[in-house]
């Protein structure tokens, strides 16, 4: 544990020294909050879509892309190989690389609660479900990052190899913007990681009851049933990504 935190601290130092990575990890995820300034002030429909976007961007940048590029970079530099020849264990290395981005992600997800209240949006109806969703999103995108790293040759290649996951995650929230979508399409989109995150925000934070709803109707007690679906879907994706990553992870650059 001490070793993991110690290594995570140095990973944070390295992250802070890389200007672009720092912007991706800290600044970029806060931008979607600005979406709340559009439309009618305090409209929960606008709030729900901007919080969904925050969660998506938090998952994709400080977590997914950041972990992917840090891991691939350290692997290319043979840093991982060197550390593994010492006392450090594999699990400690994996967690320490993920921690700085995860902390940034959790902090941003906490920060948007008072920020959105400042912009006249409601507080989360079910803060526990929201917190669980955030933690699951971080775990899920970390696992996606390590799986992608398995078939990413270099840090430059990550710009390309990250596209499938970025697209998969963005499908749900993008599809939500479609005016008329069929029942089947909706169901399918809700099964994607981004779709599940969108559903979680709509029901767990804004208390929307049903797909077309745009007013707060659910209370804390009756929000539990509708959040279970999206939480379960995110947990399932996390498991799939984790088992794929565990099977194919490489610690050394390809010869």
């Amino acid at each position, binding site marked *: 544990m*001490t*070793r993991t935190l*110690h*290594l995570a601290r*140095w990973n944070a*130092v*390295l992250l802070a*020294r*890389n200007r672009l990575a720092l912007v991706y990890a800290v600044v970029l995820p806060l931008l979607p909050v600005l979406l709340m300034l559009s439309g009618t002030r305090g409209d929960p429909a606008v709030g729900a879509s901007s919080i969904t976007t925050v969660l998506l961007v938090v998952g994709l940048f400080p977590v997914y892309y950041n972990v992917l590029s840090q891991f691939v970079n*350290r692997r290319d*530099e*043979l*840093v*991982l*190989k*060197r*550390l*593994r*020849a*010492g*006392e*450090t264990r594999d699990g400690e290395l994996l967690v320490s690389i993920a921690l700085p981005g995860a902390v940034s992600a959790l902090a941003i997800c906490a920060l948007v609660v008072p920020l959105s209240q400042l912009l006249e949006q409601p507080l989360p109806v079910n803060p526990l479900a929201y917190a669980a969703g955030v933690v699951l999103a971080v775990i899920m995108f970390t696992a996606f990052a390590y799986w992608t790293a398995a078939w990413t040759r270099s840090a430059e290649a990550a710009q390309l190899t990250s596209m499938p996951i970025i697209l998969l995650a963005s499908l749900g929230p993008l599809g939500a913007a479609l005016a008329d979508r069929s029942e089947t399409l909706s169901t399918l989109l809700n099964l994607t990681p981004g779709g599940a995150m969108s559903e979680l925000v709509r029901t767990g934070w804004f208390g929307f009851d049903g797909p077309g709803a745009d007013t707060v109707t659910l209370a804390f007690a009756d929000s539990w049933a509708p959040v279970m679906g999206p939480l379960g879907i995110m947990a399932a994706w996390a498991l799939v990504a984790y088992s794929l990553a565990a099977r194919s992870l490489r610690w050394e650059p390809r010869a």
Partner: protein
Amino acid sequence: MYTTPTPAVQVRGLRRRYAGFEAVRGLDLDVPAGAITALLGTNGAGKTSTLEVIEGLAPASAGEVRVLGLDPIADRAALRARTGVLLQRSGFSGDLTVCETLRQWSGTLTHPRPVDDLLEQFGLADRADVRMLALSGGETRRVDLACTLMGDPELVVLDEPTTGLDPESRRDVWRLIAGLRDHGATVLLTTHYLEEAEALADRLEIMHAGQIVRSGTPTEIAAGHPSTISVRGTVGLPPELGRVVHEHGHTTLHTTTLQETLTDLLLWAREHELALEGLEARSPSLESVFLAIADEPILEGSFA
């Protein structure tokens, strides 16, 4: 010299198979405690593949390995705190300074020595605030060695510690390695510099095609190999002196009895009033043994 009866590293019947070929083929090795053992071999002989198993970085395909009496994989936690490993290629984050790199490494160890002591010992004190990417190859290697030795290891495993270093840095590293033995540590290193092995090692293990083919002290290994006497130009030497070879503008005489043959040769030359130009006489060198081994055919299987 080898006072401890149990070897620090004991390998029996080690095999390592990759997809298409077998890099280590039934290797037996004892590394005596408190001494420097050099694992020598041409590129592809299987040195690094063998070290990886001893270091616990890769599992053996077959065979048994005990390191300080422990299993490198099953007893990982206990063993890693007592061993120091230097890989063939260094790996550091270019954006950290020398001092930060050592502090980072220090935090991963159970019993680290103070970073300042290491900066001093490795002559890195005035480079402490320089980023790793600005270091020379020799300096990077010194930082790497400092990491290897930071935990005061009982067993030190060094994979080509001086490859790519300038002659002065190499001498520094040699002094350091000799110092480790003087403090009671066991050192196992690989090298393809013969003079390095001769200067440094108490014991040599020569690897060829995945097996140990000769072991012993440098003198023991050279013993029994022919000495050579060479003369510039093509000279018709009497065949009864020994085997005569003419190549590269030299005439070379191979003999197992250097002193007698040389005396006979000089007497023969005086008798025939012959000037032997560029006359050289050499005891068997590790180089000649090594070259002879490298030329040996590989007996079983194919080697990709």
